[in-house]
């Protein structure tokens, strides 16, 4: 689940939670240039897809905005 209010997702039991940008624009950021907006959205989406290949024990947060763009929990 990709969500900007990721704490909700984690506490209500979603197992693979990906931090989205903001509630109003989860997969991207319109304040950036179109290229950067796209790259940012792509980073969120690819992080989400990667989580599908990883086994998780329970609700786990993945943060595409973390420096390593890896697992942040």
């Amino acid at each position, binding site marked *: *689940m*990709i*969500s*900007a*209010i990721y704490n909700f*997702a984690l*506490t*209500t*039991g*979603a*197992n*693979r939670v990906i931090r*989205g940008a903001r*509630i*109003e*624009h*989860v*997969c*991207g950021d*319109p304040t950036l240039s179109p290229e950067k907006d796209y790259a940012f*959205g*792509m980073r*969120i*989406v*690819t992080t*989400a*897809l*990667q989580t*599908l*290949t*990883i*086994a*998780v*024990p*329970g609700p786990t947060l993945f943060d595409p905005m973390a420096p390593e763009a890896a697992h942040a929990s």
Partner: protein
Amino acid sequence: MGGPLRVVHYVNQFFGGIGGEDQAHVGVSVRDGAVGPGRILEKALGDDARVVATIVCGDNFASESEVEASRAIGAELERIKPDVLVAGPAFGSGRYGLACALACKVAQGRGIPAVTAMHPENPGASNARRGIYIVPSGASTTSMQAALDALAPLARRLGRRETLGPSEVEGYMPRGTRRVHDRGRPGYQRALDMLLDKLHGRPYRSEVPYAAPERVSPAPPIADLSRARIAMVTTGGLVRKGNPDRQVSANAVRYHRHPVAELESLSPTEWEAYHAGYFNHIVNSNPNYILPLSFLRDLERQGKVGRVHEQIYALPGVSTPVAVSAGHGRSIAEDLKAGGVDGALLVAT
């Protein structure tokens, strides 16, 4: 209503006297009258009730052939037309607990009241949240008498079409439903009493009990994304421009499925958000923010994702009761499974 209450009892192959684990595959059969624990049940029910028949089904059959088992149990209930169905008790036995909940669900679906008993940690116990009356029992058969003594009065009253009071009074597991009633004193007085009790260290009970969310086991990982079929779901209120499907903006009673096989991206001239819980304007300029089709098409072209599923799923995820949301979720998940989807991205606003 004249005559004794007519009860049908559901038990598994073990309690039905067919056999143990080696007989767990057996299908649905019916015995006249009470069998095994049904005799104790009949005593607990009292003189004005009779176990007219016992439905027996193997635990493996009930869990592996759920549709077939449901159909067979349903057919027997239609034939016997009991006043109430009692299932179990299942104690700590997981498959039996799920089967008891299934039998209750089948009965309720036919307008026949039903009740079961099992240990609160039995996997079947989560069905309390799906409207099934479940009386908590011990984990083993040593608590048989206690479980049946607790279950029998509820079965009798449900069979007489009485409305049960709240779970905390009646002793069944909370079903997550609310009913409007008069507590006698206004809310501010009750709140102040509660506060005073709290400040004085006296016991008090909130009128808004915390309901822990259901835990779902994580899906196993996908071995190879480049061969996987990936679907997209959004709770961001995505609708076709102008909302021709007449979706609501909150408290959705249905979700919509849209074909996107022909689309490269979600264009703002064809799609928009209709959702009462956030500022929709930004999504209306780029709907891919809540349903990332444009990104997935690129990844599909690059061979990083096997295939983008041809259908997308959308609803506004706001003000919807948990039970209704869970129903939407189950229905979407079933559809995805039937469509051969390996993984799904759910974008929540």
